[in-house]
Every structure is written in structure tokens, then in C-alpha cells.
């Protein structure tokens, strides 16, 4: 009974929030360039002035090293906002397009307009960036926004609630904190777009809820990002880039972090040695004590990762690391060799500091391994062999592909960031954010001249010829038809 009333109170609040935002949006205030620019400027100011608070909250929620917080969350958020501010006028401009003979005389353009009220459901692993970046895109496109930060990163969630209203127009941009009941209450409301970052299971729930209102969605999900390593590479650089891509990305708890490696049986020993060297160089002899690596976010995920390791199919395959400290919620960077494919470790997204290495006879066999799994958000290849690289780009379907590095493509705002298949729907970043949160309205201006009576009944043979010519842009046919001459 108590739970019932709590849920109905939750729904009412969610309904009231969305209704208020809808009224604000209907008033038209979010549409002007000035309003959008003011919000973006406010967000940049917030990041500048509250940098310390944000870093502290990230430390509390994830034990994220200061440098990771700075690079992956603060800087990326700030540069995304800066880019939106810089390009906003250009993005908002209608795009003239050509119109064809069929519609002569006319002029046509595509006018971007806001969708209305957007819901941003964020994730816990980059809780600041993955909240503010979609909000930036939604605002740039002129929408009102509800932000629902992840409850698994409670300090950042609370921080947003506290500071965001001081920097942006809170009649149009609201933060709603909470967990499953609050999210469910929000999803019952009608939004004009929903962007969700998280896992595929909840992604399905979000899309089903959106279907009731015919709300388009962007789902930024995950997957097992493979790293294929050829033998002709610069081994030192390769191992550094893999190690920092894995354990330097929130300790492997990132949708883009390398999930598993595929290399040849002959090359594996060399690669393993190089990885071990890099791990030690970066995190010292006792990585559980290193301050340069995030912790596992909470005891649930710790238990999940522990059981992946303790699985009898897996525990014998550990070749480096494997140490755990439950109190500190830390698991050492762990390498595993040739874990069986039917183990949970090789079936589910790891999202943690465990890196399995799968060996194959020849490198081409990697395609079978990768294609037997759902399409990932990213696929990585280290190789100097141009032909193999071309084949990789052509054969592997993933959200994005990066050659000779890991995770970096995320930082190029000119590339669309999003998945395909199980790794997601839609994309954002840079202009793709603006486009994602806009409706591109086709506008055709016709004049009253150029009237073609052939368009209307009664339909005579002459009219039919004329229409045929017009439709196919056949100028000669058109002239002939106008003069009443036949053309077969």
C-alpha cells in the first residue's frame, strides 16, 4: 500500500515536471539563438567554477584518478560545449537544397527545429560527461530537457541537482534524481526524444516505453569491444595503448574499453610480456595500491566480476594479476589466456579490469570470433598490413573502428558516436548531437506561376504525355508534349 502511494506520488511528480517543461517549451523561449547560447555559456561557466567539486564527486563515486576525471569528463564536456557554442549559428541555419524540373519554379530548404521535451538518462561510469554531453546537444537544438543522472553515481547525481539550476534556466532544464521507480515514472510520460546510455537490457525497456508515445530514441549501449593484434606492430606502443585504453578508462568500466584481445598463437607470448611490462610501468608492482586506477564502482559489480573470475572454466586461465581487495573494491589488472568461449566472461560485456586473450591459428580467424558475437560499440585493430586493415574495416560491423589505437575516436567530434545492432541505435557528438535532437523540416516554397494543367483531371492523352515528360525530367519530351507531338 505504501509502495503504491509512493509510486503514484512519483508519477505525479514526473508528470508535473514534464508538464511544466512542456509549457516552457510551448512559450517558445528555448528557440532563440540567444537563449541557447546563454545556456551553453552557463554550462561552460559551471564546469570552470565547479571543477573541484566535480572532481571530488567523481573521486567519491568511482575513485577516479584526477587525470582521468580531467581528461575524460571535464575537458571533453567543456570542449563539446565550446564547439556547440561556436557552431550554433551555423547549425541553426536552414540548408538550401535544389528543387527539380518537376517542381519548377520553386525553392526548397531544410529547416532544423527543436523536437520539444527531451529525456536524458545517463550512466554511472562517466556520470558527468554522459549526463552533460547529451544535455548540451538537446539545448543546442532548442529543446527543454529532463536529466536523470545515474543513482549508482550518487555524488554526481546530487551535484547536478544542486549546481545546475544556478547556471541554466531551470524552467526549461530540470534534474530528476532517483532510481528505478523514478525512472519508470519518467518513462511513462510523453517525451519528444529519449537518449539512454547504459546496457541493452534496460535499452529494451526504454524503447518499449518510448513506443507507447511513438517517441524516437537514441540508445548508446555497449558490447564486447575486441582488439585484434597483428604480429607486425610496434609492440611497445601497442601494449601501452591497449593498457591505457583498458585500465585507464575507468578501470575497464567503459563501453569503449577493450573487452578482449584476439591474436595469433605464435605472437601471444610476446604480446602478453609487453602487456605485463606496460601494466607494471603504469601501475607499479602492486596495482591494488595504485592511485592511478579507478576502483570497481560498487559491491554488486565487485561480486559480479569476482564470480566471473572464480568460474572454474576461467580461474585456471589467469596469467597475470587476479588479486582482489573487497574492502577497497579493487581488482588488479588481470590477463587471462584462452578462456573458453562458452564461459560467462566471453559471453557478456566484462566492464571491469579483466582482459582475456584469445589465440587463433591465423589472424584471419579473428573474423569468425568477432562475428559470432553481437555487434560491439567499437572494434580495434593493431596492424601495419594495409590489406588486412582494409578487410577489417569492410568485414567488421561495429559502431566505430579504430586502427592502431583504442578509444580515441570518441574524442573526435566530427565522427558520429553510436552503436549498431545490440550496441545501440542512433548517434551523437558534435553536429550529430544537434541533428539528433532536431527535426529537419522540409520547406518548399512554390509560386503561383508555372501552373501545369496536366496535373488535374479530366485526364486527356496529351496531359498524360506531358506528365510523363515532367516526371522524368525529360525536357525534349516536355516540349514535344506541349506542342502536341507524339513521342513513343
Amino acid at each position, binding site marked *: 500500500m505504501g509502495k503504491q502511494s509512493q509510486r503514484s506520488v512519483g508519477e505525479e511528480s514526473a508528470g508535473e515536471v514534464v508538464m511544466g517543461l512542456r509549457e516552457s517549451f*510551448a512559450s517558445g523561449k528555448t*528557440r532563440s539563438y540567444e537563449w541557447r547560447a546563454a545556456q551553453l555559456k552557463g554550462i561552460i561557466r559551471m564546469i570552470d567554477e565547479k571543477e573541484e567539486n566535480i572532481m571530488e564527486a567523481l573521486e567519491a563515486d568511482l575513485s577516479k*584518478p*584526477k*587525470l582521468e576525471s*580531467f*581528461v575524460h569528463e571535464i*575537458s571533453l564536456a*567543456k570542449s563539446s560545449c565550446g564547439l556547440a557554442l561556436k557552431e550554433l549559428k551555423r547549425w541553426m541555419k536552414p540548408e538550401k537544397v535544389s*528543387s*527539380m524540373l*518537376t*517542381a519548377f519554379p520553386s525553392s*526548397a530548404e*531544410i*529547416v532544423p527545429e527543436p523536437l*520539444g521535451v527531451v529525456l536524458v538518462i545517463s550512466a554511472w561510469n562517466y556520470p558527468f560527461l554522459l549526463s552533460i554531453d547529451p544535455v548540451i546537444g538537446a539545448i543546442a537544438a532548442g529543446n527543454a530537457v529532463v536529466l536523470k543522472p545515474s543513482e549508482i553515481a550518487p555524488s554526481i547525481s546530487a551535484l547536478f541537482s544542486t549546481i545546475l539550476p544556478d547556471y541554466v534556466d531551470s524552467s526549461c532544464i530540470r534534474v530528476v534524481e532517483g532510481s528505478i521507480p523514478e525512472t519508470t515514472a519518467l518513462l511513462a510520460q510523453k517525451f519528444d526524444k529519449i537518449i539512454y546510455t547504459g546496457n541493452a537490457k534496460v535499452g529494451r525497456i526504454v*524503447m*518499449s516505453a518510448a*513506443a507507447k508515445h*511513438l517517441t524516437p530514441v537514441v*540508445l548508446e549501449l555497449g558490447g564486447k569491444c575486441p582488439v585484434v593484434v597483428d604480429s607486425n606492430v610496434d609492440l611497445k606502443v601497442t601494449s*601501452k595503448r591497449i593498457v591505457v585504453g583498458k585500465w*585507464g578508462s575507468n578501470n575497464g568500466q567503459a563501453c569503449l574499453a577493450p573487452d578482449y584481445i584476439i591474436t595469433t598463437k605464435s605472437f601471444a607470448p610476446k604480446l602478453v610480456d609487453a602487456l605485463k611490462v606496460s601494466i607494471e610501468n*603504469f*601501475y*607499479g608492482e602492486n596495482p591494488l595500491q595504485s592511485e*592511478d586506477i579507478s576502483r570497481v564502482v560498487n559491491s554488486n559489480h565487485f561480486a559480479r566480476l569476482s564470480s566471473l573470475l572464480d568460474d572454474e572454466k576461467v580461474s585456471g586461465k589467469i596469467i597475470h594479476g587476479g588479486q582482489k581487495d573487497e574492502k577497497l573494491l579493487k581488482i588488479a589488472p588481470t590477463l587471462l589466456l584462452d578462456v573458453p568461449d562458452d564461459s560467462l566472461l566471453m559471453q557478456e560485456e566484462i566492464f571491469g579490469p579483466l582482459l582475456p586473450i584469445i589465440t587463433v591459428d591465423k589472424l584471419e580467424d579473428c573474423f569468425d570470433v568477432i562475428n559470432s558475437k553481437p555487434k560491439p560499440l567499437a572494434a580495434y585493430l593493431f596492424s601495419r598490413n594495409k590489406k588486412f*586493415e582494409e578487410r577489417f574495416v569492410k568485414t567488421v*560491423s561495429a559502431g*566505430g573502428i*579504430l*586502427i*592502431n589505437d583504442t578509444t*580515441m*575516436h570518441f574524442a*573526435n567530434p*566530427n*565522427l*558520429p*558516436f553510436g552503436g549498431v545492432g545490440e550496441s545501440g*541505435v*542512433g548517434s551523437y557528438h558534435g553536429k550529430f548531437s544537434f541533428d539528433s535532437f532536431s*527535426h529537419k*523540416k*522540409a*520547406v*518548399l516554397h*512554390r509560386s*503561383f506561376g508555372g*501552373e501545369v494543367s496536366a*496535373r*488535374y*483531371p479530366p*485526364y486527356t492523352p496529351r496531359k*498524360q504525355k506531358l*506528365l*510523363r515528360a515532367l*516526371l*522524368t525530367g525529360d525536357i525534349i519530351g516536355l516540349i514535344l508534349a506541349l506542342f502536341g507531338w507524339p513521342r513513343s
Partner: protein
Amino acid sequence: MAMDLERVVEQARETFESGGTRSYFWRRSQLRALKDLLHEKEAAICEALKLDLGKHRVEAYRDEIGFLIKSVDHALQNLKKWMKPEKVSVPLVAFPTTSEVVLEPLGVVLIFASWNFPIGLSLEPLIGAISAGNSVVLKPSELASASSKFLATNLPKYLDNKAVSVIEGGPLVGQQLLEQKWDKIFFTGSARIGRIIMTAAAKHLTPVCLELGGKCPAIIDSLSRSRDVKVAINRVAGAKWGFCSGQACIAIDYLLVEEKYAPFLVDLLKEKIKNCYMRPADLTRIVNKQHFQRLREMIEDPLVADTVVHGGSLDQESLYIEPTILLDPPLDSEVMKEEIFGPLLPIITLKKIGDSIEFLKGRPKPLVIYAFTNDEKLKKRIIEETSSGAVTFNDAVIQFALDTLPFGGTGESGFGKYHGRFSFDQFSHRKAVMRRSFCLEFSFRYPPWNERKLQFLRYIYSFNYVGLLLLFLGLKRCSST
């Protein structure tokens, strides 16, 4: 039957996975074959459309055959260009790096077509799906059974039938198809079914494109030149009674006009109907008994029947409804609440034409808003203060023939767009590809972390190249800001 269906989908997937649909040559051959089909089977298509809808040959050509030929030509001309990866610029700090966006097919696509343009709405998305290199299963509408049969019989004769299949049937077959896993679902139809489709797609995280409908209004302003008025009347009438008898998502649903001009407008429309839209042979009939009944109930609502100022007669035998004009039917009547999809034209009068903006604001977003006006201020207000899939000034329907304009809805009228290049994009995955080299390594990318590395990164992110250089050369000390 269900087994056959599964087998068809399986084959489509096998064909796709074997790479059979990816080459430029395969896609081009399929598009050329479609073009051949359209040319060689023109008569058969017209026959099917006549049986299904009583559609006149001219409407059949203008709205379906000719339209499709234009689309196929456009795709053939541009296919190479569309297939090319798009080079993308990279910020200097990431040097040396190249980035591009590679267009790749999604995989196996399911297309649901509607009954009112049964050939056009089947083949236009098909053109896009094939151009993008997918294999396709097409389910035509069972309400246009002759067209459905035509497609099921002829597409396999012209196209690669391991990659493109047609599955006929009604809602049960539709349901069975939705249980399969698709890489994209493209649906044209009603919002009610759109919801069902999206809900089913959610189980597999399948992206969808929903081309739905709505009540497309036409705002009729006062026009000073009588020639303009004449043209406007032609176009308004054509977009209702000359366009599948109003059974089209982009047909004009109702008119908005200032009350002082309404009588004048009614007279002109009456005259137009008498001159051009009286011969049943020129008009498409109502598709079936259910829709006929639905429209009959709309007119026979006593509060609505009173507002009929022209037409209103019905013939159930031939499924014919006379072009009908209604003047100010109640706004809460069926005819003003639901998409009409028929030859009834309500005219709603307003005190001033600018009130049309307010009128539209509270209502679901339609696929198109039409406005016949020379008032630039009003045009600007319509673009900026209303929302719809598209806006067309001083004409109607014709926007759908432009390959350069995206065709699609927003809100209740759907999401996703197609036609021309937008079709190709709709059925593609835009894969980000970045290539780096091994040379030029920066130690500040890697742990163990220290203040100096942090400072480097601060400079990089603010694109402060000078500070970066000085720091690199050891000529600058780290600071905490």
C-alpha cells in the same frame, strides 16, 4: 506457413552474410532490374491499381510508376557517390590521424507497405534498402490484394530472389514477421500499428522508421490576384479529390480560412468539383467497405450532416463517395478529430488568418502543413511557430516528388525520413573509422599520473599550442590552473 516465413528470413540473412548484396554491381543490377519492371509491367501495374482502388492511369503513373522511375534513376545516378566513405576532419592535436565515416548496410530489412499507394510505398523504400546494400523482406498491404499479388509474382522475376522476397498476408503474417529479428523495420501506415511495430522492434533493439499520418491542414489566405486564386483552387482540389480521393497521408485533410472569405472559397471549390471531379472514372474509389463505413459515419453524424454545403452522397455498391465540402463541422466531431483519409473536405473558419497558428498549436503534429499565401510574415510565422514533418507554400503534395527534400513526420506523424539520399542513409549504418600511426607518441597519455602530464592535457584541450610547446621544451613550469 510460419516455417516458410522463417525460411525466407533465414535465406535473406544468409545471403546478406555471404556478402551477396554489398557490391556496387549487385545494387546497380537490382536497381536497373526494378526500372525494367516498371517500364515493362506498366500496364499490369495500372491494372492492379485499377482493381484495388479504381485508380485512374494518370494517377497511377503520376503518383506511383513515374514517381518510382524518377527515384530509381536518381539512385542509379548517385549510388557511387552515396557509397563512398565521407572524409572527416580531425583536430590538430590528434595528428597524425585520419578519420572517415563508412556507410555500411544494416543487414536484413523488413518493409511494411500501406494500401493507398501499394506499389509506390512498397518500392520506394525498397529502392533505398537495396541501394544501401541490404537484403529485404517486403510485406505489401493485404487491403490492396491485386497489387500485393503483382509484387509477389513479379519481383522474383526481376530481382535477386535470394536477397529480396515478398511475403503476402494480413495481420497474422505481420505479427509472425515481427517475431523475427531484423536489422531495420520500415513501416508506412497508422499510428496505432506504428506503436505495435515499435514495441515489437524494441525486443530486438531494432531501429525503426515510422511514416505515419495526421490531419494535414491547408491555410488559405486572401490572395489579391484572381489568377493566384484560380491556381490555388486547382491545387487544393487536386490535393484532395485528385489524389487517391484524399486517401493519402499527405492529402489536404481540412482547410483553414478567414470567415469572410469562406463563402467565396466554397463557391470556387464547388465549381471546380463540377468541372473536374464529377466523373467517377477520374476518381479513385474508397478502398473497401470498412473505410466506406467509417467515412459514412463521419458524414452521417447529425451535427456534421448539417454542415455539408456540397456533395454528401454515397454509393456503397461502387464504394463511391461524392466530393464533399463541410463548413465548420464541430471541432470535437470524428471528422475533425481523426485523419479523414477520404473525399470529405471540412472548411474551418477563423476570425483572422493568423489565428491558424494558435489553432494548430495544441494539435498533434501532421505530416505536412500547407499554406496558400503571399504574406511573407505569415510564412515566417508558420515555419517558426508550428511543427510538422514538412511545410509547403502555395502548392500541395508535390513536395513528395522532390528527391532533395527529406520525407517524414514528427511527433504523431512519425519519425525517420527517406526519399533520395535520405533513403540511402535510412538503411545504412554510418560507421566511424579512425586510423592512427605508431609514430609520435606522447608520454602524457599514460600513467603514472603527475601534475606535468595534467598540465600538458590542459593545454591540449584548450588548443593552447604555444603553452604546449613551451612545456614540452621545459621552458614553462606547471601551474595549478
